[in-house]
């Protein structure tokens, strides 16, 4: 598991010892396709590091049903609402394909970070990098660069 965790960008900044501690709160999980992992508004108690497969983040829009806002794939982290209050999911997550992932117990992960600020700092940096990357992609989509010049 320790070696496996080293492959995820979100944990790149951790030392081998710190990754070993994180491995202690992790276990492997698999989901079939079309399995809902969590719903919008539920308590955020875990996060997942995706090894394989694809997960969609979605939200329910009246008249349209669940609308996918973004998809995640291998190497991505699923779920960061566990880090800050109110620790509830802002979007739902459903698998589009069979997914294999590492699930981290968020409560124990926060305890590790509280007990070892150096670990917590690196973990926060890794998560911030993921958040920044996703924010930049979202901004790029907001530019609507493929839209017709006639419509502008």
């Amino acid at each position, binding site marked *: 598991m320790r070696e496996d965790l080293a492959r995820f960008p979100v944990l790149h900044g951790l030392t081998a010892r710190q990754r070993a501690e994180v491995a202690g709160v992790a276990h492997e999980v698999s989901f079939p396709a079309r399995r809902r992992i969590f719903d919008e508004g539920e308590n955020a108690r875990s996060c997942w590091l995706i090894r394989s497969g694809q997960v969609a983040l979605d939200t329910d829009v009246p008249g349209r049903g669940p609308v996918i806002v973004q*998809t995640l794939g291998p190497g991505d982290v699923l779920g960061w609402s566990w880090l800050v209050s109110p620790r509830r999911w802002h979007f739902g997550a459903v698998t*589009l394909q069979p997914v294999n992932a590492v699930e981290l117990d968020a409560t124990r992960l926060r305890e590790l970070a509280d007990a070892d600020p150096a670990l917590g700092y690196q973990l926060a940096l890794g998560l911030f990098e993921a958040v920044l990357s996703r924010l930049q*992609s979202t901004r*790029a*989509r907001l530019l609507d*660069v*493929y*839209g017709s010049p006639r419509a502008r």
Partner: protein
Amino acid sequence: MRADPMLPTPYRVAERVVETHDSATLRLEPVGTALSGARPGQFCMLYARGIGEVAISISDAQPGGSLVHTIRDVGAVSRALHDAGAGTTLGARGPFGTNWGLESAAGHDLVIVAGGVGLAPLRPVVLGALARRGDYGRVVLIAGARGPDEFLYRDQLAQWATGDDIEVERTIDRPTSGWDGPVGFVTEPLARLSVRPDRTIAFVCGPEPMMRYSANVLIDKGVPAGDIRVSLERNMQCGVALCGHCQLGPLLVCRDGPVVDYATAGPLLTVREV
């Protein structure tokens, strides 16, 4: 003898295929003498009689002097070209500019990143790589579009995606009901991709911000800027580096481009008003 580069050569629309709500592909047959030597990445100046002329990239390599161009209706001239039905006579000058240089990428992995109609000039790269599949390592195509109905060459993309010769990822910016594929900007699947930076040549085409962001992801992965080839779009008019309308810093894009490596193009694309 090569035709006068300023004189349009007559071509007749032999086939028109509707790609999306605002894009169509024309197969053009020469009425008389054909333009020769078109290479993937180059462009022709297509002339709609009495309306005007615009630069359109070559979107398929055809034997016998035929030209294939995919045209998006974005203005008066492109609308006339886009709407041209079978039998319409158009004018063509060219081919002009630099090409993708696919042959020089032999022995490398190819990462092809296309955004929107940027897939049009890249299609011959894919077709060329598939035609000489053994010459290349891994071949990856990441294609982005606004929505599922806005991908060019949808049947061809679907066919490529089912084979083993090329890895295809289609991703859309705007989620719609009924789409269960990837949703995200092209930089997202690109960021997930494991590449061998010293063995990778990237081909990127699309709106300029999309090319900048994609090049940045590739550079972060260690791919040298000189191994990232982008296709630039500027106001091409003469096509032969005389008029200066397409100037981009030290480049005249009609002659020194449209295909330029990112080590050259990158610094120019971040300078305002250049």
